[in-house]
């Protein structure tokens, strides 16, 4: 639904150059919620703003719903933007208009006749559960309600694609959860494709099907969330299951085991200990609910060097677990 190829954007000013987006490729499938995760300054906001050309990239290609946006004229681009909804961190609501007036605004921009407008506004407010607040001004409602207005407004033109620019970053945790639930619900009901950027791991964990991690203008890893969490050495997994740096004692093997779904329910630690009659030491770990399945990561310590534990590691792999062995200091000396 969204194809981004070799996108590059450099800001120039007063002798300084900043490449905010440095050769990014991204592909968002129809109907999925794709999260771009990164710290502030990673370039994710610029990337998102390039998708509806609020920022013009210096190089690259952007295709949304099969249309090459960079090839469009001014008028065509405005029409195309009407089919791409966007929600913003600070909502971007008109303070001089009521909730209903704000939702009507894009309809006015599109030239929808007045009579149709009122009916559509009612429909949209109902969709986000704000019917009661139709006559309120933005200053009179809460942050979560403001973002609901922002969502209703973004959906006015029946877009296929919704862009979310840190939509929950100005909200408290409970409100964030309810807005994320609403976004997922709307995706399911309207078949939206959602591209969101965030610096909160929690957002990716809660609603994203796929994710990309951005750093210094580049995508360092991307894929479905499940795939990323199970991939050895993945940053997403490291962020979601923070474990301290491994301190491998000589004569032991430290292993990070990642498990999902059914494997999470099987007692692999005790089975390992029983089968090989060894003591298994648990160093840390966490289990998270991600996209409806349980994914967890456990760091365990086995007696003996890694080469003595080949059978044990194979045992874990056969059980459907992803196994990462930390190099022990001894192996480095040997090498």
């Amino acid at each position, binding site marked *: 639904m969204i194809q981004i190829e070799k996108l590059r954007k450099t800001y120039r000013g007063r002798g300084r150059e900043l490449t905010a987006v440095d050769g990014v490729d991204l592909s968002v499938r129809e109907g999925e919620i794709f999260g771009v995760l990164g710290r502030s300054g990673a370039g994710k906001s610029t990337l998102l703003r390039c998708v*509806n050309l*609020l920022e013009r990239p210096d190089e690259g290609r952007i295709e949304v719903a099969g249309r090459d946006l960079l090839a469009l004229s001014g008028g065509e*681009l*405005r*029409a*195309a*933007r*009407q089919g*791409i909804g*966007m929600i*913003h961190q*600070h*909502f*971007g*609501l*008109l*303070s*001089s*208009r009521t909730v209903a007036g704000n939702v009507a*605004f*894009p309809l*006015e*921009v*599109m030239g929808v006749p007045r009579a149709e407008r009122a009916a559509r506004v009612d429909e949209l407010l109902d969709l986000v559960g704000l019917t009661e607040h139709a006559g309120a*001004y*933005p*200053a*009179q409602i809460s942050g979560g309600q403001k973002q609901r207005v*922002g969502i209703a*407004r973004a959906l006015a*033109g029946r877009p296929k694609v919704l*862009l979310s620019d840190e939509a929950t970053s100005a909200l408290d945790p409970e409100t964030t959860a309810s807005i994320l639930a609403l976004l997922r619900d709307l995706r399911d009901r309207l078949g939206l494709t959602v591209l969101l950027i965030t610096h909160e791991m929690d957002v990716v964990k809660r609603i994203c099907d796929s994710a990309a991690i951005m750093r210094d203008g580049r995508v360092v890893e991307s894929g479905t969330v499940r795939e990323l969490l199970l991939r050895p050495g993945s940053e997403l997994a490291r962020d979601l299951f923070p474990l301290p740096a491994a301190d491998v004692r000589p004569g032991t093997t430290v292993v990070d085991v990642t498990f999902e779904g059914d494997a999470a329910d099987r007692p692999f630690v005790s089975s390992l200990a029983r089968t090989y009659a060894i003591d298994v030491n648990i160093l840390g770990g966490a289990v998270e609910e991600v996209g409806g399945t349980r994914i967890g990561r456990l760091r365990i310590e086995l007696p003996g060097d890694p080469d003595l534990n080949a059978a044990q590691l194979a045992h874990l792999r056969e059980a459907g677990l992803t196994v990462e062995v930390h190099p022990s200091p001894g192996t480095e000396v040997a090498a």
Partner: protein
Amino acid sequence: MTWDEIWPLLRQGTVETLQMTVWATMITAVAGVLLGLALVVTDRRGLAPLPAVHHLLGLVVNVGRSIPFIILLVALLPLTRALVGTTIGTTAAIVPLAISAIPFYARLVETSLREVDPGVVDAAHAMGASRVQIAGKVLLREARPGLLAGLTVTFVALIGYSAMAGAIGGGGLGDIAIRYGYQRFENSVMVAVVAVIVVLVQIVQLLGDRLVRRLSHR
């Protein structure tokens, strides 16, 4: 002078002052909003960046604001004659009053428009709004309370300036204050005129504030 003599003077002066200032304010409102909008829109980061035009407009506004009103009054006599056919009387005074107030108000308009949340402008771009739609439905609409507050300030300033317009026979309360109060030492007239002006300013400010409050939903 007795109260019976002062009263008709005051009434006539008030009517003339209001004629001058209300007309001048209305002209200023239209021209000042257009000029202020042009300043914001042509700015380097505006909707239609035209730095050369922006600097030229800025220069015109600054020059307009630099000239003392009493000088402008005299300097504009040929223009006034060309526009309204005469250089004396209330109607003639409207021309210099409006011309001095337009750049003043344009700066206030500019400030108000710049205070509009850039996030809202951004959101409007993302919705596919045209520049004309953004200027009308976002900038001017969102800045309405500020535009009106600025116009109130301008109106009050014009009441003050209108007193000077008496110097070219513009009439009004200022004219009465000078001719009777100052030149003929009629202190009672002076006090009465000042009192009327104070009341006028109070009323204008009060109405302006009330309207601003009604329009503001921040």
